[in-house]
């Protein structure tokens, strides 16, 4: 028997549920599979309808849940098996090796600076790079670094111990092993959140082939001050071009050095000429790239495409609940970055059903000049210079129109998180037709298994306040369970 509670998932729902429980005096284990808690909300730039900076309002909660004497944070940890029932669950968890001693690491970041590996940064939606030893995001909690053993040179059998050498706290430990242990709890709260739908499947939208068609979450990172552009609004094509320029400049520098050496050593003139010729070619393509970059510098017209993979019987029948407001917010924030910017939102139904939502949309139109077009986008073609062209029937004028944009942002569906099906099997609860955790509408946080509760987007697509409300509700049910049975 146990009166402790396990919370699975360290996003805003899991954090809120943990805090509610901890503050009522219950011991909480908060398990998060990633190196830091924070979840999707930590990736957002701002939140609607108040335009609050997401990490600013969330940051204090991250600290609070880490520091609370009644919580035990188990990050970088997977749930592996569950036995028992309400009042007495035995949960086996695997705390994955970070290869960094959490108690010693001071998060100084020197290791990451010197690490020779560079891989796409998932937190920044792969639009930036990180090193093999990394912090999931700057404000991540616990504030420690982690070695990604899937990319680290050491774990590929290569010679490298730069991070261990540079770390003065002696926190790096390549010998660290996963720790597998059991937790005894009286109730479990599932707060495993959601995934963002991958729109590459929807071929007519050109995601993955047209560079300036991006997802709403990618746009969120582009708006963010800690994002890949430092919050400077740029098109992805411009970022790509910049990367190409950087690459080419490196090559030119290299070639120039080679030329100097060749001339100095008095090598035969043919070879020198050849290098000169190549250098000239490279300079020419550099000029071309720079011209391209200049042409991409201005970002004026952004399209927001709603219901991408949602309300679509071919992909997900359900509505993502927050997409309309999310896009209005992104349009508002983008305009705050760049006042000359024009945003157009292509929508099916404008689902602004929450408190202050409808008013927010109206303000978006009147104060930020957002252009709302009723009509779902039919296809996104590639126009002149690779610019995305949006085809759509305007349902108010009943005209088929095509408009070129500098950037197209896809409001992608909210889908069950990757591990939710296997977690359901492991814990034995049912899922609904969309793959979210099934609940009785009149018992909104009860799963089909007694003593296991659900909150946040694991239960279904919902906005942040609903997730937070549900988290508190799950905490209440967990308390009632452990008080009765634990």
């Amino acid at each position: 028997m146990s009166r402790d509670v396990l919370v699975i998932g360290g996003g805003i729902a899991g954090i809120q549920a943990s805090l509610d429980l901890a503050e009522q005096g219950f011991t909480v284990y908060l398990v998060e599979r990633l190196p830091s808690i924070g979840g999707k909300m930590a990736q957002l730039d701002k939140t609607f309808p108040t335009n609050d900076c997401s990490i600013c309002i969330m940051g204090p909660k991250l600290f609070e849940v880490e520091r609370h004497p009644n919580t035990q944070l188990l990050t970088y940890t997977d749930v592996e098996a569950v036995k028992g029932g309400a009042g007495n669950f035995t949960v086996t968890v695997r705390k994955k090796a970070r290869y960094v001693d959490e108690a010693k690491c001071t998060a100084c970041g020197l290791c990451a600076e010197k690490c020779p590996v560079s891989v796409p940064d998932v937190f920044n939606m792969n639009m930036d790079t990180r090193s093999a030893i990394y912090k999931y995001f700057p404000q991540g909690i616990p504030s420690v670094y982690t070695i990604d053993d899937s990319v680290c040179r050491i774990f590929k059998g290569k010679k490298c111990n730069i991070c261990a050498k540079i770390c003065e706290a002696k926190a790096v430990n390549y010998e660290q092993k996963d720790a597998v242990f059991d937790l005894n709890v009286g109730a479990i709260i599932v707060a495993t959140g959601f995934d963002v739908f991958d729109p590459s499947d929807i071929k007519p939208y050109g995601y993955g082939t047209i560079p300036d068609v991006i997802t709403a979450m990618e746009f969120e990172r582009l708006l963010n001050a800690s994002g890949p552009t430092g919050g400077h609004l740029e098109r992805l094509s411009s970022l790509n071009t910049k990367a190409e320029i950087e690459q080419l400049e490196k090559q030119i520098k290299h070639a120039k050095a080679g030329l100097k050496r060749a001339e100095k050593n008095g090598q035969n003139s043919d070879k020198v000429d050849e290098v000169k010729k190549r250098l000239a070619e490279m300079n020419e393509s550099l000029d071309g790239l720079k011209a391209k970059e200049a042409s991409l510098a201005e970002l004026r017209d952004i399209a927001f495409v709603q219901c991408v993979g949602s309300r679509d019987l071919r992909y997900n029948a359900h509505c993502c609940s927050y997409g309309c407001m999310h896009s209005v917010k992104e349009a508002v924030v983008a305009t705050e970055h760049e006042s000359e910017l024009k945003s157009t939102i292509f929508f099916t139904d404008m689902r602004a059903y929450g408190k202050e939502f409808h008013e927010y949309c109206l303000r978006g139109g009147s104060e930020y000049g957002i252009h709302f077009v009723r009509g779902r986008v039919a296809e996104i073609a590639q126009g002149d210079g690779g610019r995305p062209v949006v085809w759509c029937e305007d349902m108010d004028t009943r005209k088929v129109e095509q408009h070129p944009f500098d950037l197209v942002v896809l409001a992608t569906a909210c889908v069950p998180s990757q591990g939710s099906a296997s977690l359901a099997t492991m814990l034995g609860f049912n899922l609904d037709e969309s793959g979210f955790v099934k609940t009785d509408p009149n018992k909104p946080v009860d799963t089909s298994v007694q003593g296991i509760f659900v909150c946040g987007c694991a239960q279904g697509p919902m906005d942040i306040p609903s997730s937070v409300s549900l988290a508190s509700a799950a905490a209440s049910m967990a308390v009632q369970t452990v008080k009765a049975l634990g």
Partner: protein
Amino acid sequence: METELRIGVFVCHCGINIAGVLDIEDLCEYAGTLPNVVTVQPNLFTCAETGTSGIKNAVKEHDLNRVVVAACTPRTHEPIFRASCQEAGINPYFFEMVNIREHCSWVHRHDREAAQGKARDLIRMAVARAMFLEPIETFKSKVEPRALVIGAGIAGMSSALALAGEGFDVTLLEKKAEMGGLLRDLHKVAPSEVGAGELVEQKVAAIKQEGRIQCFTSATLEEVSGYVGNYSATFSSNGNTHTHKVGAIIVATGGAPLKPMGLYNYDGKRVITQSELETKLKSGKLDAKSIVMIQCVGARIPERNYCSRICCMVAIKNSLHIKEIAKDAKVFVLYRDIQAYGVENEALFLKAKEAGVRFIRYNLESPPVVGDGNVEIYHPAMGKEVPLPAELVVLSTPIVAHDDAESVSRILKVPVNEYRFFLEAHAKLSPLDFATNGIYLCGNAHYPATVREAISQALGAASRASIILSHDAIERVGTVARVDQELCSSCFACVKVCPYQVPHMDEGGKAMIEPMQCQGCGICVAECPAEAIQFGYVSDAQIMAACEALCA
């Protein structure tokens, strides 16, 4: 201060993070020259075990009564060092932290000389500030393990039951003669298809069985005084007046659908509201063969510019129920935007389409016109006005706040918005809390909600309230403002400026700040013209000392 000030300064290398840019030896030497500094110690990592025990030992060895650590950001490390101070036997607030990492070594790597100067300045300012630090004590306030729940609709009843389930006593107030609220008159709730009355009766029965819940019907809240953990609520019920001591309060006063007087020929007979339709469905008295429903009646219009969230689903639910009774009945739903968010709602929307319910969109510029036996609507595909047969017209009207929301708001000193829905502490992260500690909200009182949502919020509000109720006493760190009533000139400046409406005038006409309610922002402290408000946590003396130490 009577006792001699004895300050210890600890300077962190943070490996090479600080020491790589700053000359720690020089900083230590310099700190030693500052007034009242009796010991200075460098550490490789002050936050490591050796560092914190170093602080503790130094406190004992040098009889320190103030500790200054020059290291990284207090936002992450202050709690660690405060704990060390406490363990060493000095007040944890006799501690000051200097950020020479994030604010110095990391950001001035290329100008070491200036960085060194800045670090010296920062340490000097901290030592100066440390001289004026005040001890902060935590204080306790007893908690009444009983909650007051105002409103016994589905939200209030669910909250009360959850609180009782968690082991707390509940006083439940209902202004009507019976519990149940809005659901009493309704037919079935979607998507569970449970009878609304049945759901109410289940809850009422559970409440009656639950010894911890005391329910008062025909009740009116009259007065509330006190603060978190310790409220006193006076209310009348069936002619008697009661006063209950409660630790927390949940506002679940609900809302009601708008009566669409003067809209679309509303007459309550041939043109009715959705709830009137549900009464008909419940009694089986629906015989119309053609029904037209009009959405957004009185909502999302300039006078009432909000979306009432639930009306689309109510219309969809009821149209399905009509189709169940009479498969051949024609049902048209005229909408502006269908709000079928999420999984369940969208599925029900599809189910209605499958059942043959027709959905036709209209624009606010060309609203439907209710005629005799028909409703004329501009049909976009037809490109013209089309009369739809309508033996019955059903208007979907928004949930509006109850008239008494304002009086509840006044009694509890919690705000409402322009449509008189109660205003939560934070739209995103505190949706169920009021800015005032110890008072929570749920259900339609907050904003229109489906039954699922109302129950979720009710359970959530119960959890929030339980945080207070689960403690015998609430501990609060005294980082709060206090009024020196001797100095108070009764100018009301603090009353006006406080974002949380905490300061108030006591019987003697002097300002009072209830420490349990104070949030510790210090806004009133800066506002008070008489310097009557003390704020030991960040006192004027500390700030002034830091300013004076700006220059060597």
